[in-house]
């Protein structure tokens, strides 16, 4: 993919993800939006590494210019971090669904007073 097209697609993905994150009330939708946005950021970094006519940054692929290897290395780490964040957030969503019987952010935000525990409580 050409670098500019990649960057444009990346920005579109980030916009779509953030829109979902802000507008949707359901926690699962919010997490999906966040992840689409994160994929957009990853694509943005990869498209930065693009150089016209370059080969992938792998040693031994032959002569000629290669794409910038640094963003590729960064992207690997960023993907791992996104994965860890999503996994932990999903654990919390499962817990809240079981104990509060809701995934609606507005209800979670506006419930006042004590929250009775339906599960075992503290470990």
């Amino acid at each position, binding site marked *: 993919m050409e670098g500019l097209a990649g960057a444009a697609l990346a920005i579109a993905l*980030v916009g779509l993800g*953030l829109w979902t*994150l*802000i507008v949707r009330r359901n*926690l699962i939708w*919010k*997490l999906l939006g*966040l992840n689409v*946005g*994160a994929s957009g*950021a990853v694509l*943005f*970094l990869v498209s*930065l590494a693009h150089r016209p006519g370059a080969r992938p940054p792998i040693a031994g692929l032959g002569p000629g210019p290669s794409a910038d290897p*640094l*963003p590729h290395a*960064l992207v690997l*780490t*960023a993907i791992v*971090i*996104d994965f*860890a*964040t999503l996994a*932990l*957030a999903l654990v*919390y*969503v499962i*817990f*809240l669904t079981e*104990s*509060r019987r809701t995934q609606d*952010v*507005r209800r*979670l*935000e*506006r419930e006042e007073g004590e*929250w009775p*525990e339906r*599960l*075992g*409580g*503290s*470990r």
Partner: protein
Amino acid sequence: MAGTLRREPVTAAVAGVLLYLALGVAGLLGAGRGTGLLAILGGWASLLLWAPGFPLGTLGGPPWGVALAGDTLAVGFWALAPLVHAAAWWHERHRSTTFHGLVTLLVGTCLATVLSRDLFNLFILLDLGSLLGAILIAYDLRSRPVWAGLRYLLLSALGMLVYLLGLGLVYGELGTLSLVQIAELAPGLAPPALGVGASLLVVGTAVKAGVFLIGFWLPEAYRLAPVGVVTLLAGLAGKMGIVALARLSEALPVGPAVAALGVITGFGGLVYALWERDLMRFLAYHILSQYGYMLVGFGLGGPAFAGAVYYTIAHCLFKGLLFYAGGSGIEAVGVREIPHLAGRLPRAAGWGLALGTWSIAGLPPLAGFVAKEFLGGLVPSPYAWALTLLGVGTAASFSKILPLLHPARGHGAWGGVLFLGMGVVGFSAWGLASLPGVLSPATWGKALAAVVAGYGLFLLVRRVRVPLPKVELDHISLAVLVAAGLLAVAHLLVG
């Protein structure tokens, strides 16, 4: 030759970080709570080996080495971290080895963050800190803390997404991620990509730091976390976003934006703190108003940077003490509202709150007074006036907890109060000795006048009730994007 001489402190510092992280992993795998204590000793030992500091160093060879800096800020946090860790360890000593492993990992992450001078390295460490923080906040698996932890996780993921985009723009423009090299290039914000990128970096980090409105995950999370965890957050881990903002404003010309954020967060947090009745949430709102001092100092740079370093370390000590005393008192009594706690706190909590309150209100000769005078003397006049006003507001909001300072019965948890109290007293003594300028009667009179003015303001505001809007998750997420957009436009116009 100079290069090899400079490498040794770098090696000692990196070894200290690795030891901390390794002991954290060992604790997670079930090696016992003692790993935390070993890590505390190892951390201090490593600090002794590199204590005078090193100007700059790299981990790994060029061109991909990660830049490190052992400046005053790093040395201060390294001296502070084991102390706060020790207080948290003592309070949570009955918890599982998993918990202590996570705490050790979090402290190790903080030790690495203060050394780092690399944009992507900072990104990883801040994210790791958020993940560990979110796990620890919700560690008891009760639904309210879990919700607070999830809010924190969502907002910090959003902040880090914004940060990553900014990182890409800056890298695309300058071709380096090392803040040292960026500072040497001394870029202006004239290239549009750089102006937008720097704005995104600042806003993303500010979300993580917990700046007013865009980082409003902070009050609920600090209110509901276990006592040891909130001590650690308030005294160490929660300041990592501020440290990252300091590093950014050292390298990129975003200082004015950071200082402006500081003024906004200072007064915003103060307004919420003035009318809050829940003790822990009150202390948490108050952290925001204290961020004002730090960000103004770090943002203005130059001599004010040193003042802000000083203020940050002092703040970590007495804010950690306040949260520890307040939290352990609430644990003992079982209620959270300030009026209901009056006269019911155990002695340790009462004394801890008293020392923290006098210090934060700027009563001479305690650490807060020294730090405020030092920083106030180094910033130019409009900012100095803003900081004085903030000081009056601090005294006013803390007048509210004066009834809590008459402790009633029982001893309570002395351990952490002693650790952190010694820290506050030691820091005050060291500050007075190293800054003889603040000993003049005029500064004492001025500080006392500010405290009295604050008490007067308190008598006025407690008669009125201001319904402050409740800030919800969606508002904060939207505010993050709006703030990023506004800052980017401002930088484009200036550039």
